[in-house]
């Protein structure tokens, strides 16, 4: 009996997915290591261990750094992952993120007399604006049949140029070509978290990110609405036949995705860590990192939380690795390799099965 249970556990889908994820991570790290070896074998081991140690290399402060970097990308990751569940590819997280960030900064600089509620208002407004930004591709997809990928790409540019325009006219620091500093009351409070983690930039934002993860998990798994969304994502025609209004679901799904990205933008720029939007013609990278996070986390909210922490962890490691003379881009190469290897799960499953069969033969 016991043995049978064990068998079925090892053959289960969840085990296979978990195994292939772990193998993908190991393979990705190996590719990174080989690259370091090829380019500079003398420092490779030291550089690689810097990546692995990541945030753990400098005590509590390092962990704080990881949490700080993880906060916005967990939210953009949730944003992309949530849309994936409805069968939509939200490549526009960058635009939503930037729009949210701008509104948060604007309120942080210009609005007065809100006292302790200042940062809350900033976050809420950013969430709302992110949602509006996300709703546009949703509406166009649902009612005009416009492919959301193309709308999202266009919205990224519109968001970037629009934000630059608004910054120049409202909260512009001309000398440094960036946004002005927000008031102290607009910063998300540390709530003791920054102090606890060795006076790092971590703050209450990470708690908000975790709350968002839980909320998304509940919406997707415990509500009728979430069930409808997933049904839409799996088979649009069948869900229509079952009486689900897929148009409304597409719009709402994109609105929620946008809201999550917008909130992420606010959390990064209201963190009191001296972050400013630079007025340059470059699309915010956090949205694209969000795609990586969502893919690594397999669009599962809990998975996204850990994927965000993992990418933040090796990003800190990549920063430390510069001391050994390696560019921090190695981290992106590793992330890309992990995602690619993760896509090869079929190969990995075949490999595991082969191992199992070989073992069975051995037993016989």
């Amino acid at each position, binding site marked *: 009996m016991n043995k049978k249970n064990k068998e079925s556990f090892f053959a289960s889908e969840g085990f296979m997915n978990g195994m292939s994820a772990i193998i993908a991570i190991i393979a990705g790290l190996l590719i990174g290591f080989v690259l370091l070896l090829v380019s500079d074998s003398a420092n490779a081991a030291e550089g690689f261990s810097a990546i692995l140690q990541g945030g753990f290399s400098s005590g509590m402060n390092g962990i704080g750094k990881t949490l700080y970097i993880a906060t916005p990308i967990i939210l953009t990751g949730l944003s992309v992952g949530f849309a994936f569940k409805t069968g939509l590819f939200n490549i526009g997280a960058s635009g939503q993120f930037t729009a949210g960030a701008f509104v948060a900064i604007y309120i942080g600089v210009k609005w007065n007399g809100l006292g302790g509620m200042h940062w809350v208002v900033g976050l809420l407004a950013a969430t709302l604006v992110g949602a509006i930004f996300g709703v546009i591709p949703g509406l166009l997809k649902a009612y005009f049949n416009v492919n959301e990928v193309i709308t999202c790409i266009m919205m990224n540019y519109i968001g970037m140029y*629009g934000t630059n325009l608004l910054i120049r006219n409202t909260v512009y620091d001309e000398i440094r070509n960036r946004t002005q500093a927000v008031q102290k009351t607009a910063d998300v409070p540390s709530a003791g978290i920054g102090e606890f983690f060795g006076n790092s930039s971590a703050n209450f934002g990470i708690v908000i990110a975790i709350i968002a993860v839980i909320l998304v998990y509940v919406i997707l798994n415990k509500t009728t609405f979430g069930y409808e969304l997933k049904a839409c994502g799996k088979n649009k025609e069948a869900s229509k036949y079952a009486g689900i209004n897929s148009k409304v679901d597409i719009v709402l799904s994109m609105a929620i995705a946008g809201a999550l990205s917008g909130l992420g933008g606010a959390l990064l720029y209201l963190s009191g860590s001296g972050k400013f939007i630079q007025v340059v013609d470059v699309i915010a990278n956090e949205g694209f990192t969000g795609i990586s996070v969502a893919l690594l986390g397999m669009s599962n909210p809990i998975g996204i939380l850990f994927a965000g922490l993992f990418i933040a962890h090796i990003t800190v490691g990549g920063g430390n690795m510069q001391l050994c003379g390696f560019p921090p881009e190695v981290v992106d*190469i590793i992330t890309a390799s992990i995602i690619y290897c993760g896509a090869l799960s079929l190969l990995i499953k075949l490999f595991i099965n082969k191992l199992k069969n070989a073992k069975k033969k051995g037993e016989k």
Partner: protein
Amino acid sequence: MDVIYFIVQQTMFFAIPLLLVAIGGMYAERSGVINIALEGIMVMGAFTGILFISEMGDSMSGQGLLILAILISGATGMVFSLLHAFASINMKADQTISGTALNLFAPAFVIFAARMINGVQQIPFIDSFRIDSVPVLGSIPVIGDMFFKNTYITTYIGLGLYVLAAFVIAKTSFGLRLRACGEHPGAADSVGVSVKKIRYAGVIISGFLGGVGGLVFVVPTSTNFNATVAGYGFLALAVMIFGQWRSGRILGAAFFFGVMKTMASAYTSVPVLKDLGLPNDVYKMIPYIATLIVLIFTSKSSQAPRAEGIPFDRTAR
């Protein structure tokens, strides 16, 4: 008149790379493989091409060097796209995931490689390729000024490749098979077409055109390569969808976008636009807003290949 000449000349620099890469994307998608890795392929192609120009700049110059670089860029794109083909065709992977991985990999790898080779991220190159006026053709009135002055050989190579690609997909038996694999691979398979081989061909062609497109974008618009093609791969993807996966409409979409983009970057030299006195950023936004509006009116019936993104499984019926 000078203004019109200038706009036409500039439009070429924006439209030709979009056209090439979008038509490449079309080859992959109409064979049944979604290729969002175009951005990454462009970056890789531009990198090896520019690196070649930069390294050989002392001993060679002029059109011969550029043509060699184009071939190298194309070959790089083909090799890089094999990764996507392997994942999506052999491994039946989610094609968005594989494409995203390549898009993330390319710029990071290029920065890494450039820093390891040259010590810095940028690769400078000497632009010895500009043609002031094409012999004979350049002296034709009006047309000569528009199309044969202040130009690059890449413009003609790009247009030539486009015509070839449009012809092959529409008029040859290979083109027919490719389209069949994107619409109904089961039917293609039943008459003895190897869906696997055709899809490989589609992805590799998109790799070649993507790689060339990367170089063609960088050469006329810059004098150093900084590991980016400014999102042109994604724009090409948009042009391809905008063009409804059909070569004729893609040509229209690429030039629509090219003209818009030219207006946005060169509005100061167009009196009518300059007199509007709008902020710089508004001009820059116009191409994207205009595209959105056009899409609303033209997207009612999408003609995406029916089998795109679905791995082919012989045993499934």
